[in-house]
């Protein structure tokens, strides 16, 4: 009986995780610069990822930001549908996180 119990214990002995019940990733606020198109950009970009992911690309050219936005639409299927919406986001990014260069 004892043997059987021991065998059963070994068979079903569970793996123990170091962290019980999982984790919670904290929310960190990455403030956006005030500017024309901020609310629209927030809605379009921050739905999928933190603003930190955007602003920590560094200060970039207009061409860079346009290519990034297009990558988000084409590769990652971001729901930015109209040319007007694209321009709003690109202009906000360039005006507030631009390096002054168009290309």
């Amino acid at each position, binding site marked *: 009986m004892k043997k059987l119990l021991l065998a059963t214990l070994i068979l079903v002995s569970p793996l123990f*995780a170091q*962290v019980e019940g999982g984790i919670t*990733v*904290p929310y*960190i*606020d*990455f403030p956006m610069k005030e500017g024309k198109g901020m609310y629209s950009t927030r809605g379009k970009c921050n739905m999928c990822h933190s603003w930190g992911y955007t602003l*920590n690309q560094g*200060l970039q050219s207009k061409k860079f930001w346009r290519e990034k936005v297009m990558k988000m639409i084409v590769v990652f*299927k971001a729901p930015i549908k109209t040319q007007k919406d694209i321009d709003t986001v690109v202009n906000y990014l360039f005006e507030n996180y631009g390096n002054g260069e168009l290309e």
Partner: protein
Amino acid sequence: MERRDFFKKAIVVAGSAAVGSSTIEAAETVHPIDNRKVSDIAFPEKRPLITYSDRPPLLESPREVFTSALTPNDLFFVRWHMPMIPNYINPNTFFISINGLVEKEIKVSLKELKTEFKQLELTAVLQCGGNNRTAFKPTAGGIQWGVGAMGCAKWKGVRLKDVLKKAGLKKEAVWIGFNGEDKAVYSETANFVRELKLEHLNDDILLAYEMNGEDLPYLNGYPLRLIIPGVYSDSWIKMISNITATKEKQQLHFMEKAYRIPDNECECETPENLVKKTKPIEEMNVNSIIGYPVTGTKVKNDSSLVVRGVAFDGGHGIKKVQVSIDGGNIWEDAQLDDGSAGKYAYRAFTHAFKPKNSGKQTIMCKATNEKGKEQPFAKDIQWNHGGYKYNGIDEVTVEVV
């Protein structure tokens, strides 16, 4: 630009992240940004780290970590591509699927991995290809990492080869694709899938469930991740749950577009003239970094200062590390540890000297590997659009008082 001026231009923004310098003219490569502070908010299983994003988590280790040959799990950097990461995984129900061009599609539980396969331990450096990206001018695309998007751990797990063998790869199989449990917000968005050509499969590639003697932290890929020693970490898939063998290469953004450099001798290009033919970043360049002292440390005149750091390369092994205290004219050999952690691990080094006179004192370190490759000066590193593979001679400036 003077290094001190460069520091002044680094902007620290609220939320503890930072943006790069605004230098836009095509310029010499500089030292990466080095003065960012850790966040006041700690992520799960981590001490506070330099925080670039919470969704997905992007966390950088501070320079002080690099005095030690193994990076503690709670100080280890974090980089995910997809923002939706499971916040709970049950180790008793978790399994990895092997499918595609295999004799038998299988699911292997964590317990089976730990009991039915040969268990191996291997110490290896995990480094983001874009580590030190802030060195590149003009600003290269991607997260503007400083010096700490890397770490070294002792990984425990099983050979990928052994797990694939259990499923039995078919003769037609040429590629294996890896996918983890992280997901995008939109279901239409493709997963972060990476591929390995089967001819590159070797005995050192592991499916690891342990890091420095503990479970992997969730943010480093609990409960299972891929370890591919010697290469940058773009294919070290975290929370890996699926492996698919295929004949044809899949068309994947993260393989075809991201993590690629110019396919030429210098692996370089200019912003005006981007090179069309590219190749994966792959093998890590020889590199070294000073963990102590850091820039701004005050040291006493004529007191014994022990410089500590780590060096590594893509697996050929470190031959020597040298230290210069005169701006790179005279180099003295540092003392290396015994190298017993293996060719993919950090080699810890120390170098003692007595600072003379008061004022600023620069300390540089430079590693040379067994192939004779040595680190260049930062200014001699040429630009690439992704800001990959920086390995400039490291430098800190202390104040002698």
